[in-house]
């Protein structure tokens, strides 16, 4: 009987060792699989890729000089009012902040720059209640494209805030695109030039790396019509 018990105990010990070893192997396999999953998952492409020219590339679509650290990237994920932009919360009481953006669908429908600019001014910041007026307007070219640049500022005494803006409406093929910078301040706050300098660098360095949707569809229509 004693002999039998001894054998049983040994057998149990061996079984226990084997089951421990099996669990160990299983855990190792799971670990390898998990590790494999991590390495096999597609890497999320970086939204902004730096170049050796001191600029960044945005999703292989645009290249531009980005503002320094502290400016947050704004990206439109669902197709709305703008394509991409940056914003910065600044020192001072609310609403001390500046935003600037590239918008490929500025207000209005006219493809004539002057007509579009006139209409644009009637809609810009309308919902904020800011009584904006044009303080300066000029015609120029940006990267060889006809442009109207205008500065606007205004106040909303009820909300005790004011805004100062710089807008570029640029002819791009058959359409008009825009670059817009708006600085917000409380009524007693002072505007600062530095954010506008970053905006100017953004605009003057902005390059289109790909044909946009509208250029592509125009080509398709041309092909279709012969």
């Amino acid at each position, binding site marked *: 009987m004693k002999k039998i018990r001894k054998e049983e105990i040994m057998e149990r010990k061996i079984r226990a060792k084997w089951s421990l070893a099996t669990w160990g192997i299983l855990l190792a396999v799971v670990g390898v699989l998990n590790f494999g999953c991590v390495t096999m998952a597609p890497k999320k492409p970086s939204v902004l890729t730096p170049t050796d020219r001191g600029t960044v590339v945005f999703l292989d679509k645009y290249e531009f000089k980005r503002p320094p650290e502290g400016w947050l990237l704004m990206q439109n994920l669902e*197709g709305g009012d703008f394509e991409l932009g940056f914003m910065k919360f600044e020192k001072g009481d609310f609403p001390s902040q500046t935003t600037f953006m590239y918008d490929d*669908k500025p*207000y*209005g*429908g006219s493809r004539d720059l002057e007509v579009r600019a006139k209409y644009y001014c009637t809609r810009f910041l309308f919902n904020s209640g800011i009584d904006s007026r044009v303080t300066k307007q000029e015609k120029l070219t940006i990267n060889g494209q006809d442009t109207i640049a205008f500065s606007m500022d205004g106040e909303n005494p009820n909300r005790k805030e004011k805004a100062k803006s710089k807008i570029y409406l640029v002819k791009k093929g058959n359409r008009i695109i825009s670059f817009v910078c708006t600085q917000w301040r409380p009524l007693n706050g002072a505007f600062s030039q530095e954010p506008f300098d970053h905006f100017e660098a953004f605009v003057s360095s902005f390059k289109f790396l790909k044909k946009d949707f*509208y250029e592509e*569809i125009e080509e398709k*229509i041309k092909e*279709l*019509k012969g």
Partner: protein
Amino acid sequence: MDAHNRDLYLYERLNARVLGVSMDDVITSKYFAQSLELEFPLISNVLPWMGKAYGAYSEKPPFLPDGTQNWFGRRTVVIDKRGIVRYIKDGSPDNKEILMFLLKLEKEVQGK
């Protein structure tokens, strides 16, 4: 509306025309069209037979953020040359999708 206005030149090349339909009266619609400088016609459909025909009319009015009643939901309908409804989408129009759809229809018409 702005977006349709911007894309009118492409709609024309794709042999499509835009028509806006609203339950507002003629004077209101006229003022609305002028304020947005719309270059396509608006139909004032006070008796909402068009809204009913195209499924944009709701028996129970949804309310706009300002509290006013709105019986017409936003609906985009594309009708082909034979009068057949080919595309329906509720909510804000997706102009890129509409343009791609019109391109597909034009290819159909041209047999390509």
